[in-house]
């Protein structure tokens, strides 16, 4: 069972240390997004990376449309991975919707994580003016999903089908592996709907685990107002506004990202937390 989960979710464990940091990717990408940041923590922590079912190198056979129609299915992936590795009091780092997924897991099992580190999280993308600014109107999100669909007719869909029909040509699946953002178009489409049309504002209030919110200074996906909203409603949270712009500081500004995470963890654990 444990071994099954580790294969199903393409779990990679590295590093040495009693505490574990679990890194959860955001929408659309796989565990490679952590390649510029996670290695810095390997001297002091056990580092765990994984893919959601339906993304990256996970077992696509395990995908059930019904289970993954909302973020709770993905939160169950996190819980399963933690259970398989018998993690307790770990540190969770999640990018974007990965942060919300970690939050949902932490609500279900409050003892699982000691700290949540949320990079560019948004509990709700749609505006609900004047009470809430999520940054998007419905047309914007539909436009985004349309753009995804247009891209998938181009390559992912084609490749997935070609690979299925050509098991004797492994170079084709190599091509798909190289396209690390490619997933099955149906899976990606449903994940996009689950992500961008979700509203987890009520769940934010239920979290008891202390957290760090890393908010980019100019993020078109999770604008600064959303970061402030998260900070106001998330008990025991610390908000850091980064110099980094964009939505992927762990890729665009890995040094600043590592520095802010390690600063937070150093003061939490009163000991050095990064290499060197």
């Amino acid at each position, binding site marked *: 069972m444990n071994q099954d989960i580790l294969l199903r979710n393409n779990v990679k464990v590295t590093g040495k240390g009693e505490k574990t940091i679990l890194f959860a990717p*955001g*929408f*659309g*990408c796989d565990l*490679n*997004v952590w*390649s510029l940041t996670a290695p810095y923590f390997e001297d002091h922590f056990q580092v765990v990376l994984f893919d959601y079912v339906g993304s990256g190198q996970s077992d696509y056979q395990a995908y059930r449309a019904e289970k993954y129609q909302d973020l709770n299915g993905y939160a169950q992936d996190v819980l399963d991975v933690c259970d398989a590795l018998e993690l307790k009091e770990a540190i969770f780092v999640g990018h974007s919707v990965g942060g919300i997924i970690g939050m949902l897991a932490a609500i279900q099992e409050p003892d699982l994580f000691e700290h949540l580190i949320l990079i560019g999280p948004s509990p709700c993308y749609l505006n609900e003016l004047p009470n809430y600014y999520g940054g*998007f109107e419905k047309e*914007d999100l539909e*436009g*985004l999903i*349309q*753009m*995804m*669909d*247009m*891209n998938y*007719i*181009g*390559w992912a869909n084609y490749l997935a089908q070609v690979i299925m029909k050509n098991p004797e040509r492994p170079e084709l699946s190599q091509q798909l592996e*190289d*396209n*690390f*953002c490619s997933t099955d178009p149906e899976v990606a489409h449903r994940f996009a709907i689950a992500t961008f049309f979700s509203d987890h504002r009520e769940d934010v209030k239920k979290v008891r685990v202390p957290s760090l919110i890393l908010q980019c200074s*100019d*993020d*078109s*996906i999770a604008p600064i107002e959303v970061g402030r909203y998260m900070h106001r409603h998330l008990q025991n949270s610390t908000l850091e506004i980064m110099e*980094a*712009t*964009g*939505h*992927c500081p762990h*890729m*665009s500004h890995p040094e600043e990202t590592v520095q802010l995470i390690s600063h937070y963890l150093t003061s939490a654990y009163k000991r050095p937390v990064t290499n060197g």
Partner: protein
Amino acid sequence: MDRQLDSAPFGYFTLDDAGMLMEVNQTLLRLLGYQLHEVQGKHINLLLPNASRSFYQLYFFPMIRLQNKVEEMYFSFKSKDGQEISVLLNALRNERDGKVFNDCACLRMKNRIEYEEVILAAKKDTEKRNLLKAKQIAELESLRIELESKQKKLLAVNESLLEMANTDGLTGLRNRHYLQECLSSYFMPDTEQFLTLSFLLIDIDYFKKVNDTYGHLTGDSILQKLGNLLRDGTRKDDVAARYGGEEFALVLPATGKVEALEIAERIRCQVENADWNTYGVTISIGVATKVPGDTENSLQSRADWALYYSKDHGRNRVTFGTEE
């Protein structure tokens, strides 16, 4: 910028990792209606509609940063006058003089985008139809399951009706009707000569007196006890039935004269000595065994004759009905 690149038949621009436009060629500037000084050093968001801004963050940047290339990405720009312009985008991450550049080339899609939109619409339509089909199949399936379960119920009801039609209500034994059918089956032309068969008729002695002395409830109870005793003694293919009133019958397939007489005698003894039998009830039995040329009637007649012989010769005994 190289003059040829500046006016190449494709848009060309360079981004740093923060998304700032470092260089833009004239072809792209003309397409979007901007002057170089308006865009250089600005964030690419300036040139993008909202959907593309998100798409850039979700797909373009992670891919160019980690894979160093983007191929055939469908993307759209927004011109200065607000027109959305679709392009096909390729990008390479290149290092020059120690600095990293995300070099991008884009080709405008005009006719092609229309084809692709038609394809996408057709794909969505197909998906919708498939979904509908799946739903209809699921509905049919649930109807089929419902039908099956109703059929099962009906079969069960039929079975219990049949059971009721073949069973004697008081003793729970088979009734006379069933017994006759069962006997007939042993006299079918093709089975006739091969099967040995014995038939027992059993009658309670002085049953009227029992009823008159102890009441009909006791009489019924004795019928039930005798019924149970007969049922408990039957082997797999034997049939015990209530023949009428206080008369019972046993069909004993594959049983010859000697064995049938033993069985009859055992039953007679069991009744005489049964622990429920505080009334001194006894039974008389007539036994017949099938011979060639027998019919179901002739067999029963001989058993009947034998029973009356038992009755006429002291009761509480077993008689074999010999053929004339």
